[in-house]
């Protein structure tokens, strides 16, 4: 199957007067139609920046992008602003962590859905309203007719998130980009939204990239996982393989720090230290300074991709030559 998203050697730098930030440092992945990819990483790992690059949402003035980004067969980097506006919403849509800042506070939810449908599908407002009603039912908002007339501030957090999903799906995009959409929600509401996304993804056959810092959330939603650290994908593979037999020391540390199953009150095997400053381009493995298994050569050579099992790829010199202690 041909990829609906294809990223090759993506590198993103933010060049500002005082300093340069190397946010993404050589990321490649493919996404086939109907696949759900979870990008797992902590603050500053470059996961959200990668996602925004797929939508052409990064400020052109100080962003330097290298590499190839193709979404739905089009080269995102070559598109003009007008062309991008056609692609966004139509072919690729995005949902965010905080619906309150994404939704327009002065328009009702109904108006905001209608706007998107009219803009992309060139239908009459009446037809768009019918579609809006349909969408609200799709995202399981009770009494949709009445709710279409409500403003964002009149809704609960979970309902606002459903409304944002409705707007994103209004034009049946081939790709949905989700940037931590459940992070601000309570655990009982979070699982509702995850189940909804899972169901809609199946029904509409969308490809989804789901960015999160939460291992548990990623496992609930993703078919495959990409673990990101300091702007690189350190481990990618089917969710089961990455969770059950993580090969990169960072993935292992991240899983241990979820504290699930840890012995109560015992000192955790935490990853020491801090993520690197991204002001300089990394020479060797970015994780080496925090890695228990690091050797001198780790700081010298950037680890290449190493296939440990079908579709399971890790970037670690010691995992590659089998010298990592089990």
């Amino acid at each position, binding site marked *: 199957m041909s990829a609906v998203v294809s990223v090759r050697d993506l590198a993103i730098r933010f060049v500002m007067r005082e300093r340069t930030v190397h946010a993404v440092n050589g990321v490649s992945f493919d996404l086939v139609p109907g696949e759900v990819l979870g990008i797992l990483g902590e603050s500053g790992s470059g996961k959200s920046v990668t996602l925004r690059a797929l939508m052409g949402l990064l400020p052109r003035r100080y962003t330097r992008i290298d590499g190839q980004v193709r979404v739905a067969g089009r080269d995102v980097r070559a598109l003009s602003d007008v062309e991008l506006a056609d692609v966004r919403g139509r072919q690729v849509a995005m949902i965010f962590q905080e619906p309150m800042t994404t939704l327009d506070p002065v328009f009702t939810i109904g108006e905001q859905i209608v706007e998107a449908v009219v803009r992309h599908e060139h239908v009459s407002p009446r037809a768009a309203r019918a579609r809006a009603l349909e969408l609200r039912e799709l995202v399981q908002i009770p009494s949709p007719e009445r709710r279409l007339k409500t403003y964002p501030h009149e809704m609960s957090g979970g309902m606002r998130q459903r409304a944002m999903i409705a707007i994103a799906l209004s034009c049946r995009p081939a790709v949905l980009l989700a940037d931590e959409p459940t992070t601000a929600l309570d655990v009982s509401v979070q699982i509702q939204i995850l189940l909804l996304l899972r169901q809609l993804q199946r029904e509409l056959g969308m490809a989804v990239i789901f960015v999160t810092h939460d291992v548990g959330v990623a496992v609930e939603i993703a078919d495959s996982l990409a673990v990101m650290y300091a702007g690189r994908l350190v481990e990618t593979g089917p969710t089961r393989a990455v*969770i059950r037999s993580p090969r990169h020391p960072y993935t292992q540390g991240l899983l241990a720090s979820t504290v699930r199953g840890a012995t109560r009150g015992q000192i955790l095997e935490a990853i020491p230290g801090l993520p690197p400053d991204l002001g300089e381009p990394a020479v060797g493995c970015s994780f080496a300074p925090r890695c228990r298994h690091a050797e001198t050569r780790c700081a010298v050579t950037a680890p290449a991709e190493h296939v440990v099992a079908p579709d399971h790829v890790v970037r670690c010199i010691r995992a590659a030559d089998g010298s990592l202690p089990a």
Partner: protein
Amino acid sequence: MTAAPLLATRNLRKHFSLRGGLLHRVQAVVQAVDGVSFEVHAGETLGIVGESGCGKSTTARLLMRLVTPDAGDVVFDGAPVGRPGGLGLRDLRRQMQMVFQDSYASLNPRLPAAMSIAYGPLVHGVPRSSALKRAAGLLEAVGLRPELFANRYPHELSGGQRQRINIARALALEPRLLILDEAVSALDRSIGAQVLNVLIDLKRRFNLTYVFISHDLDVVQFVSDRVMVMYLGKVVEIGPVEEVYGHPRHPYTRALLSAMPSMDPDHRIQQAPLGGDPPNPINPPSGCRFRTRCAFAEDVCARREPPLGGVPGPLTVRGGLTPPSCSPAHDAACHMLVPGSGHTRAA
């Protein structure tokens, strides 16, 4: 558990009035905390869990007297706080300190780390040189080398380092009890794990007692000896962590625990245990506050509020024996657990 508790609350209540309109009249009342009683014993960690609006943070603020309760008492080491003949606020805060979620907002941006930590002792009359010495010792204790960090300002520190400073500052007056209100929630997992390790280490080293508040059920399970589950200003269940997580008795606790991500790609959650969002604590439902989201709600649940009481343990069910009195109680507030309550599922 025969010893007197280090900290106890009795029927603690805090309602916030929402005023508005032309005459600035009370429009609505948020029942943030409504009749909450619990005990914390010396040396233990009590975890408090619940979703937004359940009153866990207001409870923390009431314990510290950052807000004044409308009714009820906080009793620290046998002395009622703020009552005649009881414990004054100054003394209370020498014994009990708090760490907040936002590590940046809770530090003075114009004070270097060592000064932030030494500030409390200075105010309480400790000479400057020994206060700074104590600050250096505490920096060491939270895993920050004093020679590197003593003179750094909050903006020069990472989130994890700032939270360590906050913990060190909370310990500067040598308190006996620490309230940790979402203290690791804003941190990345790998950093949060480091801070949890610091907390575990400090508890042993200084014989501390913790009240650990979090929405993160995994972290609460990991750190707590006993857990208290709150819902809309009420305690719905409290008991030893193994009991509450292993044999939850209140339908809300059960739902909350089964909404936790599975962490198992082969056994993903298939159905949401609860519908809708937690209701607004303004005008909460009558009777049992959980009844609007409860699968087992009946008429009696709307009519009467269920009392928080001892749940029949596994021993009672099997052999008709009462659990030995030395084990800490497992209490839940649900009509289904009260024989003769009128609920069809009650014994």
